[in-house]
Structure formats: C-alpha cells, structure tokens
C-alpha cells in the first residue's frame, strides 16, 4: 500500500535535486548571503549610539513597520534585536517565495510539460512525485537552517544568544516549508503552473498584507498571519520556539490536504474542470486581441490586487496621524490649521516612502509582459503569428505597448486604492493632487524600466530575468536608503532615484524629460534590434 503510494520518492528527489541545482544554489546564496552577510556587517554600519537611535526611530515609523514588521517598545535595542526586527519578516517573504516557486516548478511545471506522465508510467508511487517535491523543499530549507543558524553564531552580534540565532534560522526555514507545502497544494488544485503560482503568491501576499495591517494597528493580534508568527517568536528577546513548531504543524496539515486532492484528480487536470466555450468570438481579430484574451485573467488579478493593496495602505493613514492627536503638547498649543499641516507633512513623508511599493508592483507587471515575448516564442504561440502577414515590428510593439499600458493602469489602480482608503478613514484626507503628482512623476521611471526590459528581450533574451533583479535592487535602494545610509548618487543608479521625494516636492521636469528621452531612445533601439534578430531562439 505505502510502496504503491511513495515508491521511488528518493530516486526522484535525487533527479530533481540534480536538475534544479543551479536554481537552488542561486536562491540559497541570495537568502543565506543576505541573512549572514547583514548580521556580520550590522556592527560596522551602525557604530554610534546616535545612529542606532536614529535607526530605531525610522524602524518604528508606520512605513517601515508596514514593510519590515513591528519592534516591541519594551525591548532593549541591541544589534541582535535590531537584526531580528529589520530582517526576519522581510526575509520570510522571500523564503516563502523561493520555496513556493521551487515546489510548483517540480510539481505542476513538470506536469504541464508532460514529464509527470512519463515518470508515472514507471514503477513510481502515486504520491511519490508530490513527496519528492516536499523532500526537496525540506532539503533546501534544512540547509538554509543549518547554514544561516551557524552563520549567525559566527557573526557574533552584540546581544545575540544561541537560542535566538537558531530560532531566527528555524522560523524562516519554517516559513519556507509552509509555503513550499502551499505551493504543492495550489499545484494540485490549479489546472496549470501559471495559475498555481498566481494562487500561491496571492496567499503569500495576503499573509504579508494582513500582517502589515495588524502590525500597524494592533500588533498583539499578529497570530492571524503566518508571517506574524515570525514576530511572535521574538528572536533574541522572547525566544519563543512555539511558533516554529506551529509552522511545522501547519506545513504537515497542508501537505495532507494536497495529497488528498492529488489522489482525487486526474493527471494533467486541476480540481476545477475546464468548461467548453463558444465556437465564435467577435472580439478576436489579431495579435493584440489575442494577447488581451490570453492575458484576461492576469489583467484583472493585477488590477484588483493593486486596488486592494492601495486600499490597505490607505486605511492605515489615520494611524500615522495618531501621533499628532495623542500628543498633548500639540493638541493644546497647535491651532487646527497647524495640526492639519503637521498631519499632512507626516502623511506625505509616509507616502514618499510607500509610493515605491506601487511603482515596483507596476514595473513588475510591465516587465513580466515584456518577457512574455520570449516565453510565447518558446511556447510556440509566436510561430503562429509570424507565419501570418504580420510584421515582426507589429508583434513587438503590440507586446511592449500592452506592457506600458498595463503598468500604468496597475500604478493608477494602486494609487486610486490608496486615495480611496485615505478618503474613507481620514477626517481631513490628503488632496488628490499629491496622488496625481506621484503618478505623473514615476510613470516615466516605469517606462524606462520597461524600455530596459525590451532591450534585453531584443538583444539577449536569455538574460531577461536580469531586469527583475534590477527592479529588486531598485526597491531596496529606494525603500531602505535611509536605513543603509545610501548616498544620493547611489539611489540614482536606478531610474526611480531621479524621482525621489515625490510627492513632498514637485516633479523635477528636467529629470522627467531626461528619463523620457532615454526610455524612448532605448525603445527605438529595441524595436530595431528585435526586427533584425531570429524570432525563434533556442
């Protein structure tokens, strides 16, 4: 019975590990490198008490709590507790992302390619593929646990203790395992890898946003999100191992559900059967309409996702201005107008930091669409288009144009959500002009990022994911430049840097024009490059 279910899981694990070795290694180096690297350098970055105090003030601002998590007021600030407050929740997001992507790739990704069918025809257990995927997740996270835990021991931060070091490593590995299992679960429920990935990332995003809302408003309720469990562990000050145990328990429960679904479905199918449709469509007529129809599900997901993200952040605007209301000195000495001005200033400061999240989300949407040119060429969709009397330029411009429009729509949707949230919770909401200023200013920076993606697709498509790395780099530069004490020229290494301090300051139109010109020139070069290269690349 058991052998029928799990036979050859070990061998499959070995094959998968061999095949995924580079992917695993890159994630491993990034995750472990960030954790251990930062831990060993934290003492060098913050040398004086003054700089530590300034950092703590920054970290306790709502914008930072929203992204990095909550640091309890009662604890004493040491290098170790700073590290735990700054790194663990944020890294949890990436541990979760890495594990779920890996798990979906080995389960649903293989199934979509027909590999699963080939393997299942051998004397391999019914659940062996699923188990092998989970074992791979265990191997990956166990290694991370050992290396990060050991690395933290060696980093020897002041205020660190052995239990805290290993708990930090364990909590993150636990989050990795949990989202690996969630990836396996969505891979069983969805009918193809892309849907499974979207579903799993949505769960991760929801966990992160729920934690954000709770952290900003009522931190003690952060049990409601698995990412909040990291904070409940309180590495270095509370050292509570219970959340780590809960993460493991949750992982196993989800794995059991995944196995139950897997045993009830056919190979190549999802839980929900694909329904028949109409034989005719009035809508479809060419490459653009085909792209729009294929992309319809993603289109609405991104748009609604952005609006919800905006609403969530907008709904914490009142918590940010609470400081002014609760401050007795200000309440008595300041006039209403002055209080309003102070409140607006605080909000604008918050928005200036926060805006980059919406910018990045919008950029990612555009880059994914640009990179889809290469994906669709590999999948064979482009071959059908290229055999028609449709020029190469038209196909390229269709994808790029659609990407630009979508990026701007997602950006606008996010800001609209933010504005609506702001209207809903604020007695004196922030004026619309600030939101429009943000949109106008950053839209050219987003355009430039899309142009860079287009250049890579036109000239070196196999390096297309570099644009994603660059975007990630851009986020870190923009969001954390005050924490890392970055110089202005460093922030300007990314297009967003030329628009920083929006909406506090007005748009610098010289910078705006510069970004726009560079973006347009790059786009033209990309079009020419694409037109000249082979359309089907190996």
């Amino acid at each position, binding site marked *: 019975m058991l052998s029928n279910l799990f036979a050859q899981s070990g061998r499959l694990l070995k094959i998968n590990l061999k095949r995924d070795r580079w992917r695993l290694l890159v994630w491993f180096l990034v995750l472990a490198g960030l954790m251990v690297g930062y831990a060993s350098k934290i003492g060098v970055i913050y040398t004086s008490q003054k700089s530590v105090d300034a950092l703590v003030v920054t970290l306790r601002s709502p914008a930072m709590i929203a992204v990095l998590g909550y640091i309890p007021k009662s604890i004493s600030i040491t290098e170790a507790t700073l590290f735990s407050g700054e790194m663990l929740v944020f890294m949890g997001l990436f541990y979760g992302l890495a594990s779920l992507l890996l798990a979906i790739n080995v389960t649903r990704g293989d199934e979509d390619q027909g590999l699963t069918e080939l393997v299942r025809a051998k004397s391999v257990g019914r659940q062996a593929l699923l188990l092998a995927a989970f074992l791979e997740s265990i191997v990956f996270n166990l290694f991370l646990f050992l290396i990060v835990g050991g690395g933290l021991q060696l980093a020897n931060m002041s205020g660190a203790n052995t239990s805290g070091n290993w708990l930090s490593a364990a909590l993150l590995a636990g989050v990795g395992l949990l989202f690996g299992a969630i990836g396996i679960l969505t891979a069983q429920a969805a009918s*193809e890898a892309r849907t499974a990935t979207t579903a799993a990332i949505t769960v991760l995003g929801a966990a992160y946003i729920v934690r954000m809302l709770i952290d900003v408003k009522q931190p003690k309720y952060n049990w409601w999100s698995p990412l909040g469990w990291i904070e409940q562990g309180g590495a270095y000050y509370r050292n509570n191992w219970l959340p780590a145990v809960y993460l493991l328990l949750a992982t196993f429960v989800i794995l059991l559900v995944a196995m139950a679904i897997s045993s009830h479905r056919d190979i190549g199918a999802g839980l929900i059967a694909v329904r*028949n449709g109409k034989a005719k*469509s009035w809508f479809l007529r060419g490459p653009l309409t085909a792209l729009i129809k294929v992309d319809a599900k993603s289109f609405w997901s991104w748009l609604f996702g952005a609006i919800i993200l905006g609403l969530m952040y907008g709904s914490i605007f009142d918590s940010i201005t609470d400081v002014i209301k609760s401050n007795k000195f200000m309440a008595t000495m300041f006039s209403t107008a002055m209080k309003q001005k102070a409140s607006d200033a605080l909000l604008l400061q918050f928005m200036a930091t926060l805006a980059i999240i919406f910018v990045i989300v919008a950029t990612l949407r555009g880059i994914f669409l640009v990179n889809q040119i290469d994906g669709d060429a590999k999948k064979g969709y482009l*071959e*059908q288009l*290229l*055999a028609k*009397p449709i020029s190469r330029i038209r196909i390229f411009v269709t994808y790029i144009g659609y990407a630009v429009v979508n990026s701007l729509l997602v950006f606008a949707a996010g800001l609209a959500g933010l504005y609506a949230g702001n209207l809903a919770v604020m007695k004196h909401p922030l004026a619309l002009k600030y939101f429009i200023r943000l949109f106008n200013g950053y839209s050219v920076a987003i355009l430039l990022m899309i142009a860079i993606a287009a250049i890579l697709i036109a000239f070196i498509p196999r390096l297309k994911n570099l644009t994603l790395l660059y975007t990630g780099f851009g986020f870190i530069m923009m969001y954390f430049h005050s924490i890392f004490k970055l110089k202005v020229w460093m922030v300007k290494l990314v297009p967003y840097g030329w628009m920083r301090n929006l909406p506090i300051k007005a748009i610098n139109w010289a910078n705006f024009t510069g970004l726009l010109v560079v973006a347009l020139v790059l786009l033209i070069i990309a079009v020419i490059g694409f037109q000249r290269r082979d*359309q089907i690349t*190996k």
Partner: protein
Amino acid sequence: MAAKIVLDVQHVQKKFGKFQALTDITFQVHQGEVVGFIGPNGAGKSTTIRTILGMLKADGGTVKVFGEDAWSKSVTIHQRLTYVPGDVYLWPNFTGGQTIDLLLKMSGQKHNAKTDELIKEFELDPTKKNQTYSKGNRQKIALIAALSCDVDFYIFDEPTSGLDPLNEVIFQKEIERLKQEGKAILLSSHILSEVEKMGDTIVIIRQGNIVEAGSLAEMRHLTRTNITVTAAQSLAAIKTLKGVHQFKFTDDSEKIAEFSVDSDALQAVMQALTNETILNIQVAQPTLEDLFMRYYGATNAEEVSGRAE
C-alpha cells in the same frame, strides 16, 4: 518545367552559435507541385522552413518566395501563403473554433463553407478549449485553418504526425485538391509512405545538406530493384553477376533467392534469369524507404570511417 517558381532556396546556411544547422540547402518548389521534404529528426527540416517563413535569418545564400526575399518581405509574402507548424501550440482558453477564425482573420481570410466542411469531416468539436485538445486535435485546428485559406503556397511541417489513418486520408484528399487547383505545396515529413503517395518531387535533407532532389521516378534510377525468384534448380549462378547485391537463399536447396539489382544491370540480370526454369518471380519497385535508408545508411558509414581516421 514551364511552371512558375514559387519557392527558390539557394545555398542557404544557418548557424546557431557554433552549431551549423544548415550547411548548403538548395531546392525549388513550382506552381502546381507537391514537394516532399524528408529527412531524419534533427536534419534541419524545421530550421529550413522557419527560414523560408522569415522567422530565422539565413547566414548565407538566398531564399525567395514569389520572387521576393523571405526575410525582408515576409509580410507581403505571407499574404499569399499559409503554414502548419510541426508542434501546434495554441493559446490557452480560446476554443478551437475561435482559434480557427483568428488564424483565418490574421491571414486576411474569412470563415467560409470550406471551413465548416473541414470541421465536419475531421470531426472536430470547436467549442472545446485549446488546452483540453489532444495533439492530434490541435493539429486538426491548424490544418482546418490552413486548408480553408485560399492562397498560393501551402507549407506543412510534419502535418499528420498526430492524426489517425482516417484523418490522414482526408488530408491527402485535400492536398490532391490543392494540387488540382494549381497551388504549390511543401510537405515536410519523415513518414515516407505519405510523401511517396503525394509528392511529385522529393527533396532529401540530411545533417543540413540536401543529399538528393528530384522526382521519385528519377530517383528510382539511382537505386535498386528488389527481386524474389523461385526456380526449378539452383540459382547459384545469379549470385556472381555484376550489379547483384544482398543476395541470399531463403531455402537449403538454393532454389529460392532474394536479391537487389542496380538499375543499370537490370537488363543483364533478367537475361540471365531467362536461362533458368523460373517457377515464380516477384519484382518490387524500390520504395522511398529504400532510398531513404540508402542515404541514411551511407552517411552513417561515412561517419564511422571518419571517426576511424
């Protein structure tokens, strides 16, 4: 041949990095002609076709379709041709019917009576979503869209690899119709019987080179006729004749023999046979399979000797 040249491929070369995919490809397709383009897997069939379609840029040589350059004039050219890829991938979440109409519209054509007729003949359910079709059904969708196009040049890359025999017959009938209408057809395949039935001209490609091109009748002169003879007495005398190959007895008394004869030696061998008391004789035309195996085998032998040097 007075018919107009539709496709003219001259000394085409193509490299992917260090890999020489096409070394020297030269052949033509004329109006009203079915050209069978055959070769083993990985010989360069699809690469050649993609170059003809302007999806890949040739590193050397010229490709002209309707007298225009395949790479720079692809849009003009594609208005007059249609293509069915070897692996048909279709946009997910479209139905089969929607896909057929889209493919037709993009060719500047419309869903017509022929389309409906083909959907019926191929027994395709056009309301199913593309991702639920099998390989054969996906191929049918691309074939229906292509066959109901009214253009001058049809390119099929291994079109029947997923079809069942009944559908294959429908396809062959359609090719015959197009030929009667004076269209040009390029049919790549490794299914030899298919090309043999439909092709007027055969082009054999191997490792990026055209190893043979000509009509099937012309090529048969290049190969051997298979003969099986049953005689009243021993046939040992035949074995030593010039032009006789692969001679073997199928019984102990040496009265039944199988062998192949070079085309130019056929006359002499037949005369020698008339001296024997023949009880039964079977003469088989060389099949494309034989042709194919000859080139396939020959190059393999070269490779072996090449390695020995």
